């Protein structure tokens, strides 16, 4: 097997490839079947992520954003009924055998999972945990892997990386543990990073440090797919936003434009709910994914809802440059 000198130098991120479609999602549906009901967690999602994109998927708990990330990693549980297409660099991930997915995970697409005390193995030194993917993918020998881990921990702001590698997860603060999770995602130098709420549970100051770290060390030439409900985080890291509501995409566009001139009434409501915008509330609650309304899924809470909105389901519509919205107001 051909082992590159350093994964960092392995020029897999060909600059010419930047801007090409890397991940194509079409008609993606994820339905969880329980004994009594069918839960439509993700419903007919179409999304193209280009090489080098920094894309933010925003939405509230239960809207299906984490399920999207899990589907891209091929990590959904067996009671999930998945249909549609997820194509990565031309290969269809949904029909791919598990052996191929194992080769992809970590090496091509890696995940920074939600920072919680139980994400890392509590009885394994963090250095060994970070080295594990290198050894599983047979990229390095054990000695080389150790060196690479220490080099990476140093690059991610650990003052004494040798000592840090020998510690257990509980010996770190939340912010330091987040750095370990970032190291774990970056160790095989993947092309795509999926980050699921990378800063939840961190104090404001630590959060800013981690966001800067992600911007400097993670993005670069890499493609970032950020899953978050925090608009501040999304606006800091992402150039494009995708707003999800009740399992479907309701608005997409360049971050600055979506945030300064939101089109969909839900996006507008979300921005007005921010404490700094004066806590204006959206009435009602999100519909349950097991009993979705027939028309627009936001219609029951929408102040601009028309007769038509309750009967017909609006399609995604191009509105202006690079912007799409799922709303009859823009017909």
């Amino acid at each position: 097997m051909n082992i590159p000198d350093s994964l960092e130098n392995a020029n897999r991120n060909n600059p010419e490839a930047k801007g090409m479609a890397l991940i194509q999602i079409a008609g993606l549906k994820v339905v969880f079947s329980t004994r009594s009901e069918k839960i439509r967690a993700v419903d007919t999602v179409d999304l193209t992520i280009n090489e080098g994109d920094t894309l933010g998927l925003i939405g509230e708990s239960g809207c299906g954003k984490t399920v999207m990330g899990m589907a891209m990693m091929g990590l959904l549980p067996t009671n999930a009924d998945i249909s549609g297409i997820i194509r990565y660099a031309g290969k269809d991930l949904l029909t791919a055998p598990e052996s191929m997915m194992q080769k992809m995970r970590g090496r091509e697409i890696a995940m920074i999972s939600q920072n919680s005390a139980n994400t890392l193995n509590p009885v394994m030194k963090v250095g060994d945990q970070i080295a594990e993917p290198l050894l599983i993918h047979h990229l390095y020998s054990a000695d080389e892997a150790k060196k690479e881990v220490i080099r990476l921990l140093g690059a991610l702001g650990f003052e004494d990386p040798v000592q840090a590698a020998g510690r257990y997860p509980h010996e770190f603060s939340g912010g330091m543990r987040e750095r370990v999770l970032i190291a774990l995602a970056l160790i095989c130098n993947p092309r795509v990073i999926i980050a699921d709420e990378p800063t939840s549970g961190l104090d404001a100051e630590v959060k800013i440090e981690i966001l800067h770290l992600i911007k400097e060390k993670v993005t670069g030439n890499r493609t970032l797919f950020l899953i978050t409900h925090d608009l501040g985080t999304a606006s800091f890291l992402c150039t494009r936003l995708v707003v999800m509501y009740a399992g479907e995409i309701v608005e997409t566009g360049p971050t600055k434009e979506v945030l300064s001139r939101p089109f969909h009434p839900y996006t507008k409501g979300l921005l007005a709910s921010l404490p700094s915008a004066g806590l204006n509330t959206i009435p009602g609650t999100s519909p349950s994914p097991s009993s979705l309304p027939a028309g627009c899924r936001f219609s029951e809470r929408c102040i601009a809802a028309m007769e038509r909105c309750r009967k017909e389901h609006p399609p995604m519509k191009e509105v202006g440059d690079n912007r799409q919205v799922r709303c009859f107001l823009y017909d």
Partner: protein
Amino acid sequence: MIELEEITKVYSRGFLRRQKTIAVNNVSISIKRGKTLGLVGESGSGKSTLGRIALRLIEPSSGTVRFDGIDLTRLKGSKLRKLRPRMQILFQDPDTSLDPRMTIRECMAEPLIISNRAGPEEMEDRILGLLGQVGLQSDLIDRYPFEISGGQKQRVALARVLSLDPDFIVADEPTAALDLSVQAQVLSLIKSIQKKSNLTILFISHDLQVIEQMSDSIAVMHHGSIIEQGTPQDILHMPMEHYTRNLVAAAYGSDAWLGKIKDLRAKS
């Protein structure tokens, strides 16, 4: 209404309890009736400890807590128990503050029965009235906590707190586990109820933006001490302490685009 005077709390541990951790260090705060004091600080700064001391859920090592002129730190037994309904706490995580084996009806009835506030025949009406006050539908009453959403659970917790007609509430990060739009709903609900029943609130949060919206005055806590206190205007626009400046920058710095939203709202 509520006065904390020179409160200190020291935890001892280790061999002969010689290792000391000072959780709260000589803190004095007071809140006037019907007002909200926002207590902001990062995790481990001692703000939750202080909130619990204010209700005497934790004993301070030294200092005095006065509630409506009564020295809480000296009260015992039935006298203290009599005051308990007048001061309540709203916790961060409704999953752990609601008993998972009780329906909403049972959970709501418990404080009403204990405090003799409603007999069996009027119980149903009382509970429905309280649920209505926090914007919950009556069909929720026979469900279990796991069958309702996080926002609804926090509303139930709030309804339960309100059922005792308290004068003083400690709200300890009540919306940290909630989504943005749900957070806005719960916070404006707390505000409107405060207006109606002249509640005094100690509002604890690490989110300066939430604190700004909720508080009449703000106290900044760092390593167990209050390092700065003032109106939201002063703290946010003229922070004196270096630490507060960092806190403000961290809370508002990455959200520079928010300024634009404010402008937009002002225009429209």
